[in-house]
């Protein structure tokens, strides 16, 4: 049922049309998010729905009641006061700047409406207030006054206040925009809670990640019109409209898959221009494809004979199910079906996390295994593959199992398959086995963050993600990520300076956790800034580099002004850098000056000083293991700011805190404004607990060697489990895989066979 109907709504402020003939509906229980740049009219819509602004054309119908009575001579006549009051009580509003009543205590702020409007007794109202405050986790603040609360607390009180009259619809106007970045999380958490309760909500925001998580449907607005509408999948992951893409690009990176596609099309058009070349290349391609297909059909048969047969069988079944991150519904259905058919107890949550339990009759000991169901979808440019419906073709290639020009999804499908094989097995009947299947590990980690593990009996979890044969992961890093910015200021008329472009391309990049310990990868942003620093007296005009906050940058591009006579010196410096790194492109060329406008000296110096002095790469190591590292990840511009993203990973929090002090000084010195940050928790445990010893014993029984204990800089899902399970013991084990996250992803079959035996041995001796 549509609880809100907006029909042909138009609104003008002094002849400026801010909303242009907009129509949309909101269903009961739905969370609708309205995205858009500032000035796109999104807040005005909320204000019109709340009758805080009068509309000029159209109508709004709330819960069957119409706001407009009739139209007379082109003017709208609003309905009677009585009806408007009823409409009003159906809608709650949460404002950007809270608008709490300062003269009333937190409790009174919430109680006043139930008492005065709903005629509740004081006791009843107090009960309502207590319940709501408990939900907002603010019960201890109930007698304080708004002035003594933090922004996040204020906003939570304001949400509680709007809920006090039990409205059918809750509108939120930029609920997190006036908050400090570190306070945003607590408010978003509360809103997510409400979304889970299936409250009808209309939320105006720019927090794209949040929108993606919470929205059932997203409307993207630009210039007073709805540009795009659809599920978060459609609008954020696959935007169709140019404006949406531009907007999203300013806030997040487009998914790598889309980028690849774009590049492909570009290349193709280029090809079409060169007619002769085209035929040749296409011929080559078809031959290549044919070969692969032939190999494919042979290896399908081969596949059936590979041990461990059960694991391979399940992996084949999973590979036919599309399971891109954020799209795990089908794999969830598969897992639920698996559990139902075998009469196993299972739990599913709204994120599509699944837990399956196999109880033994003797009911002795319990152990849990964990894997994530989603996978990264990457493919070669010349391959036609639709990750949303095509199954992944498995090819046996020597000792390796690989896909046909796409990612294989062994990360972490092989883990899922192994758990299913264990749950399905007739052996180990004396042990309770629990399988934990999480979602979105490759993107938001929301699955691990939000999964409810209270149903779990075991405090021992073996993750089958990200392992390496012969090694056992016993610790992971705590990761802090930031986004900071510097406001732009310009300088004009740089008379005798000349414009240059400095270009860094084809660096290896890689994951800022896994690959940071490889000096040869280099960080092009740091390298480029090094040159500018040594050149001195430059003005940056344009700057961009890197892709995502958890990736080592692969490219860097800077346009800048300097005195022409310095060119030789710069070329010298470039030569030195080139000697150190392999197969990279570093170029300097003269720019095509359009105007002599660049960032002011002060801004340029702040950018250079910050990046130059930023301690990048590995900072501390213990026995070859990195325990503190930093990554200068991206530098990007938007209209008004230069945005810089960087991250720190630490296994030793004391060392990190010392480093953070230095970093903070640098940030203060260069006056950077931090606009976003998040902390991903790490796994920290006793290095010889029961689980680790158990795994080690099993390995030693089979291969006569100890497992090598490994501490990684990457973030693993186990970090999020720590708060959920008392005395958690968590390790990661698994077979060797190569070139994960790329179309060359391959799984070593022999390694799988050996590590699978380790799992069986663990269960035998447990």
């Amino acid at each position: 049922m549509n609880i809100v109907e907006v029909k042909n709504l138009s609104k003008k402020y002094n002849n400026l049309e801010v909303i242009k003939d907009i129509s949309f509906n909101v269903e009961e229980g739905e969370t609708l998010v309205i995205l858009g740049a500032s000035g796109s009219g999104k807040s005005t819509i909320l204000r019109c729905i709340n009758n805080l602004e009068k509309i000029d054309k159209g109508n709004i119908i709330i819960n069957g009641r119409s706001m407009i009575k009739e139209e007379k001579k082109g003017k709208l006549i609003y309905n009677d006061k009585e009806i408007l009051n009823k409409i009003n009580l159906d809608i709650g509003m949460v404002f950007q700047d809270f608008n709490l009543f300062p003269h009333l205590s937190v409790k009174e702020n919430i109680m006043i409406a139930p008492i005065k409007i709903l005629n509740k007794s004081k006791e009843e109202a107090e009960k309502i207030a207590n319940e709501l405050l408990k939900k907002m986790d603010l019960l201890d603040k109930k007698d304080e006054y708004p002035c003594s609360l933090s922004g996040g607390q204020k906003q939570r009180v304001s949400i509680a206040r709007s809920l006090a009259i039990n409205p059918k619809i809750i509108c939120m106007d930029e609920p997190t925009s006036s908050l400090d970045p570190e306070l945003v999380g607590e408010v978003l958490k509360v809103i997510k809670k409400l979304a889970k309760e299936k409250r009808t909500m209309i939320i105006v925001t720019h927090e794209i990640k949040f929108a993606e998580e919470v929205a059932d449907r997203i409307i993207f607005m630009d210039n007073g019109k709805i540009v795009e509408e659809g599920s978060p999948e459609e609008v954020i992951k696959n935007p169709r409209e140019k404006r949406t893409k531009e907007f999203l690009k300013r806030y997040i990176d487009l998914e790598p898959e889309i980028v690849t596609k774009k590049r492909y099309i570009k290349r193709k058009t280029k090809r079409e221009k060169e007619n002769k070349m085209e035929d040749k290349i296409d011929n080559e391609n078809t031959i290549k494809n044919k070969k692969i297909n032939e190999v494919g059909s042979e290896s399908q048969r081969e596949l059936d004979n590979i041990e461990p047969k059960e694991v391979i069988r399940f992996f084949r079944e999973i590979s036919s199910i599309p399971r891109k991150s954020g799209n795990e519904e089908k794999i969830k259905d598969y897992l639920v079906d698996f559990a139902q058919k075998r009469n196993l107890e299972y739990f599913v949550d709204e994120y599509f996390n699944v837990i399956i339990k196999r109880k033994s009759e003797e009911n002795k000991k319990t152990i849990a295994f964990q894997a994530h169901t989603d996978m990264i979808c990457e493919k070669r440019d010349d391959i036609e593959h639709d990750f949303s419906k095509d199954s992944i073709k498995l090819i046996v290639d020597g000792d390796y199992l690989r896909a046909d020009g796409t990612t294989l999804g062994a990360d972490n499908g092989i883990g899922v398959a192994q758990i299913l094989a264990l749950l399905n097995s007739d052996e180990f009947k004396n042990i309770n086995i629990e399988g934990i299947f999480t979602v979105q590990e490759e993107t938001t980690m929301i699955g691990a963050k939000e999964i409810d593990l209270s149903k779990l009996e075991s405090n021992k979890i073996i993750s089958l993600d990200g392992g390496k044969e012969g090694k056992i992961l016993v610790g992971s890093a705590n990761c802090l990520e930031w986004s900071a910015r510097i406001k732009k200021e310009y300088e004009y008329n740089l008379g005798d300076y000349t414009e240059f472009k400095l270009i860094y391309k084809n660096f290896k990049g890689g994951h800022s956790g896994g690959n940071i310990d490889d000096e040869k990868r280099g960080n092009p942003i740091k390298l480029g800034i090094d040159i500018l620093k040594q050149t001195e007296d430059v003005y940056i005009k344009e700057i961009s580099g890197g892709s995502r906050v958890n990736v080592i940058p692969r490219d860097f591009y800077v346009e800048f002004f300097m005195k022409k006579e310095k060119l030789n010196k710069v070329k010298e410096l470039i030569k030195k850098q080139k000697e150190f790194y392999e197969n990279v492109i570093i170029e300097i060329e003269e720019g095509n000056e359009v105007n002599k406008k660049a960032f002011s000296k002060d801004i340029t110096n702040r950018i250079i000083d910050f990046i130059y002095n930023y301690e990048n790469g590995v900072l501390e190591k213990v026995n070859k293991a990195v325990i503190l590292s930093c990554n200068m990840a991206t530098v990007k511009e938007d209209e008004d700011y230069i945005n810089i993203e960087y991250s720190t990973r630490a296994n030793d929090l004391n060392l990190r805190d010392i480093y953070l002090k230095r970093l903070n000084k640098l940030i203060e010195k260069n006056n950077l404004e931090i606009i976003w940050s998040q902390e991903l928790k790490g796994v920290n445990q006793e290095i010889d607990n029961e689980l680790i010893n158990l795994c080690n014993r099993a390995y030693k029984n089979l291969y006569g060697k100890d497992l090598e204990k490994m501490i990684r800089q990457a973030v693993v899902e186990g970090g999020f489990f720590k708060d959920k399970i008392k005395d958690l013991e968590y390790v990661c084990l698994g077979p060797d895989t190569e070139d994960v996250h790329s179309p060359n992803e391959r799984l070593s079959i022999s390694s799988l066979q050996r590590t699978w035996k380790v799992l069986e041995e663990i269960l035998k001796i447990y």
Partner: protein
Amino acid sequence: MSLNQIINLGKVLFSGVGVLLQIFIITLILSIPLGIIIGILRNSKCRIISFITRVYILIMRGTPIMLQIIVVYFAPYYLFKINYDRFLAIIIAFVANYAAYFAEIFRSGINSIPKGQSEAAYTLGFNKCQTFFLILLPQIIKNVLPPVSNEVVSLLKTTSLAQIIGISEMFALAQKQANYYFSVMPLFMAGAYYLVLTFLVSLIFNRIEKKLEYYS
């Protein structure tokens, strides 16, 4: 003057304090609510109402209060040959005048409350009246307390003008005594009374301000 004379004088002047306080309190009780109403009307979107209140405030603040008292008392006589109570006349004149000052104070007080407060109240279902009395007024009072206390103190002393239409309040008595004894002592003593009264009024306002300090 002898001590006895001074004590006597004190008693005589004290009888005038009663009249002073009557004028003071009645004026306050009537002018503050009137001031709030005029303040709200001054903010009205209806141009005529807002214009009328502006003219009213201009006249009340732009002419001497002494003239206003004379007009209020004598105009009915000259125009319609009506005689009426002097005390009533002084109350009308003072209330009319002070309401104008209070109106401006309250107007600025109303404007100092962010629009979001009324909007939040509206979305919770409050009507305009509830919004004003439950949400806005408590905050306005806190904001306007210092300027209001200024006006109140000034009113205390302005009561001395009641004598122009022949009301024997304290200062009028003091002047008479001063002429009688041919001494400035009675005037000084009147001054001391004003000082004590002002001190008491300030004390009360300080108390109220303290009480409202629980939030900022």
